[in-house]
């Protein structure tokens, strides 16, 4: 260490020892002038000092920078040339001279100086790199690329230049060439792969960069496994998951990683919402590496992707636009693999939370999508009976309670919802929902006082999603307090609706709507009649009924909803986009304060796009 430091100290000492204290003061004075912006005075002083000691590098550098500040390019060139006469082997001086010509706007002369220097010192491997640095400094990237390419050509180690070339190509948006340089680097030293990958990913979002890079990397695929990894990463970046999957399969085969890379890929794709590919990846792992450690996780991933795919498809056919509906028929071939996948998890992860969740998912799939509540019930019961302390228990109780309500077994439903209310681990939202359902059960039994009490606890938390429904029901119960016979009739109709007995329910709603005594229920009953008609696909009759509600305008608080439903029938039921737009536009005009305005606007925009 001492050996290294000593020469440096001696050099510095020698440099300053040559300057007299007077010269030193003069130099500092010039610097002060420079800082004040008085370049002319600074030049005068440094010129004198330079004349006195032309070998002094400090004076030279300062004088040249001052000439450039004052745009005295001829003086700068002369100064550099005089310095070249003193040290003709100093390549950087030629670079500097070219740089002065370049700054003066004389590019031809600048190139000539640089080219001559490259020729003159062609045996020095650093010449072209030094010259290219001057070109880069002047932001002449094309010229710098030219020099670096020349250097690469004549150098014994062409890869020395590839990194700089890659950077310059990237800056100048020549991504194909940049990729080619980076591939050369990987080829020369595959251990640099990760570094190069992050370099490429830093600009891969630029227009055309990804496509051009993929094109180049693809050609190197057979050279080294690193290229396959890089290509797969680029495909992921491009969201071309199928290609990436194929590549990972190839890598897996070549590297014998026993699915490790594929598993990470599958998880990444699942998180990105690309369920189809994720499902294929997990299936591949399950089929080919059944003995591997992460296979149980792959099985869970497979089940979840299958479910997500199934629900995506199912939702497109399910008539969710209707207020009440019988769920669409499910394709057995589509739901069965999902259920099997979850059953497999139950088998593998016995008694774990994952298995309990799988039970819940199967129950939901059966009850909600296959409309097989008896079978669904079995799975929910496994949770409530065997794992009542699980975090999924409250949901299982709720699902069971809903099934019992649908089956008109109100006592059993009540017990189940009471269990949720008492369950310590149940979250407040589940408890509120259970209380709301209890209130409905009481109302179905005509125990309106108990219903009201239960609703009070739900309405206490307005942030809860169910609070609005609770308020709506509470208003009805309170308003109709003195008309208990019609309230009872209304609740019976609601109970039939809950059981999806829409035709019977419609008759009761109709009875209420036509009974002059039951004026409190007229508005809601008329709407419900129309909703029951919609539920049974009697669209024309529903439109006629809804039109009558709309005509009542402010006399019926559901008039705006009626018009909105009319639009929905046209849009989804009768597929008449023009009429749908007409209904929505009429809603905007007639009910400017309606809650359905935003949805109506959105639908108009979508329908108009479709129509145009």
């Amino acid at each position, binding site marked *: 260490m001492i050996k290294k430091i000593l020469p440096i100290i001696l050099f510095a000492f020698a440099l300053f020892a040559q300057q007299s204290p007077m010269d030193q003061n003069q130099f500092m004075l010039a610097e002060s002038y420079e800082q004040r912006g008085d370049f002319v005075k600074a030049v005068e002083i440094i010129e004198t000092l330079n004349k006195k000691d032309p070998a002094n590098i400090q004076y030279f550098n300062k004088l040249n920078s001052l000439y450039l*500040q004052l745009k005295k390019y001829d003086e700068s060139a002369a100064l550099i040339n005089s310095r070249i006469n003193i040290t003709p082997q100093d390549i950087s001086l030629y670079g500097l001279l070219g740089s002065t010509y370049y700054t003066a*706007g004389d590019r031809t002369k600048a190139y000539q100086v640089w080219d001559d220097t490259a020729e003159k010192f062609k045996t020095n491997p650093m010449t072209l790199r030094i010259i290219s640095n001057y070109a880069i400094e002047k*932001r002449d990237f094309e010229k710098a690329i030219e020099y670096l390419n020349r250097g690469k050509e004549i150098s014994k180690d062409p890869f020395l230049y590839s990194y700089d070339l890659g950077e310059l190509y990237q*800056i100048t*948006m020549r991504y194909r060439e940049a990729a080619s340089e980076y591939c050369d680097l990987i080829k020369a030293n595959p251990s640099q792969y990760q570094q190069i990958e992050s370099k490429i990913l*830093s600009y891969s979002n630029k227009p055309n960069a990804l496509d051009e890079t993929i094109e180049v990397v693809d050609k190197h695929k057979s050279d080294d496994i690193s290229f396959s990894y890089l290509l797969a990463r680029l495909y992921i970046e491009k969201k071309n998951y199928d290609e990436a999957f194929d590549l990972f399969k190839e890598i897996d085969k070549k590297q014998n990683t026993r699915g490790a890379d594929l598993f990470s890929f599958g998880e990444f794709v699942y998180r990105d919402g690309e369920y189809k590919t994720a499902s294929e990846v997990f299936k591949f792992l399950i089929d080919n590496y059944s003995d591997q450690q992460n296979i149980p996780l792959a099985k869970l991933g497979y089940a979840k992707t299958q479910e997500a795919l199934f629900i995506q498809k199912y939702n497109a056919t399910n008539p969710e636009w209707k207020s009440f509906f019988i769920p669409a028929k499910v394709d057995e071939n589509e739901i069965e693999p999902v259920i099997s996948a979850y059953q497999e998890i139950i088998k593998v992860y016995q008694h774990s939370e994952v298995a309990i969740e799988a039970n819940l998912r199967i129950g939901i799939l059966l009850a909600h999508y296959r409309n097989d509540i008896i079978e669904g019930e079995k799975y929910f019961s496994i949770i409530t009976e065997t794992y009542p302390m699980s975090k999924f228990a409250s949901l299982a109780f709720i699902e069971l309670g809903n099934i019992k309500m649908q089956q008109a077994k109100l006592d059993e439903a009540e017990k189940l919802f009471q269990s949720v209310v008492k369950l310590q681990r149940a979250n407040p939202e589940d408890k509120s929902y259970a209380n709301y359902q209890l209130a409905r059960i009481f109302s179905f039994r005509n125990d309106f006082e108990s219903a009201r009490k239960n609703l009070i606890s739900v309405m206490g938390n307005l942030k809860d999603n169910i609070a609005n429904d609770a308020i709506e029901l509470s208003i009805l119960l309170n308003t109709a307090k003195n008309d208990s016979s019609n309230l009872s009739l209304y609740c019976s109709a609601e109970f039939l609706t809950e059981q999806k007995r829409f035709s019977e329910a419609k008759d009761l709603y109709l009875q209420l709507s036509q009974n002059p005594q039951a004026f409190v229920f007229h508005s809601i009953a008329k709407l419900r009649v129309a909703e029951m008609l919609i539920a049974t696909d009697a669209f024309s009759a529903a439109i006629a009924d809804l039109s009558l509600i709309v005509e009542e305008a402010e006399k019926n608080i559901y008039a705006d909803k009626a018009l909105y439903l009319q639009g929905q029938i046209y849009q989804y039921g009768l597929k008449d986009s023009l009429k749908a737009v007409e209904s929505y536009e009429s809603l*905007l005009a007639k009910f400017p304060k309606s809650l359905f305005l935003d949805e109506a606007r959105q639908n108009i*925009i979508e329908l108009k796009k479709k129509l145009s």
Partner: protein
Amino acid sequence: MDLTQTDHLKAYGITFHALEDGLKADWLLNYRGGSFMIDQSDKIVSECLLNEVLFEQINLSQASQIYAEVQSEDNNMDVVRLEKAPRIAVYVPPGFQPWDDAVTLALEYANVKYDKIWNDEILRGDLEKYDWIHLHHEDFTGQYGKFYASFSNAQWYIDQQIMYENDAKKNGFNKVSDMMKAVSLTIKNFVGQGGFLFAMCSATDSYDISLAAENVDICAPVFDGDAADPDAQSKLDFSKTFAFQNFKIDMNPYIYEYSDIDIQPAEIGLEQNDYFTLFDFSAKYDPVPTMLTQDHANVIKGFMGQTTMFRKNLIKNSVIVMAERQGTDQVKYIHGNFGRGTFTFYGGHDPEDYQHAVGDPPTDLSLHKNSPGYRLILNNILFPAATKKKQKT
């Protein structure tokens, strides 16, 4: 369009569309905060409903009453006929930018058609295809927004510099600053020949500085590779500018400021005290500034930008001050004529984001449907549609 209007901004879009469809619109200056009267059509009604714009359907006699009220000598109101939708261009670089342009946001929100143009289009003479051009955050001095100290290593800054350099090379200029001077001059000619220029934020002062520095190099070596002229300040030609004079430029690349035109944050003080006031003009005698200041509020929340406000003593006497911070020398909104055209400068970056920093997400205008600050921007796009009346003063 007073405080009862549900969406002031989209109302401008609807009027613009009506003009595009060949209808005529009357701008009722100062009538209920400045309103538009258009012949009824199902399309307009439907568009108002769809866009949640409050409208009132009136009969002929009600319309006559309104015209009578507006044209009465007792009221500071008037009617301006809007004839033809102006052809709008917004000067914006291609590709990603780490900030948003309030005018583009307003035009997009109000669904007003516009074209994006950049240096190539301006230099090849495409401006003649347009009536109105907007400049926002771009730097016309060739100093890349003076972001050097904070962002010279940021990828977006590096990309931006390369893009400008390529543009310059492509268009035959050795330096970006030279190209920007040519762009500024082309825009100046466009205004001189009757074009409308609307600039915000740093496009205001950087544009005028570029005009003043037409024959002098004010860029430090980090921007254009050669030194700035040490005597640049004394060589500025203020006779060439639109709005500002006698300003002092700051050529230090490490200082994020072009000149002393801009008001500094320390001079503004607390955000809660930052409001500017619109001047009240005579609708019948000064219809142009009246149009440009139509608003439902006359005291408006301030907002910062790279250029926030203009120093009053540096504004030329020929320029009309339309809004300022009362009791200060801080001016927010100015307008002037050059040749057969006009220019309007509005300080600040985004009227609904007090300090819009580099990289901040764009403002969601659906949350600011009644923004008085944004409304001033939209006054500018309809103003060129007005039929020229004989000047009363």
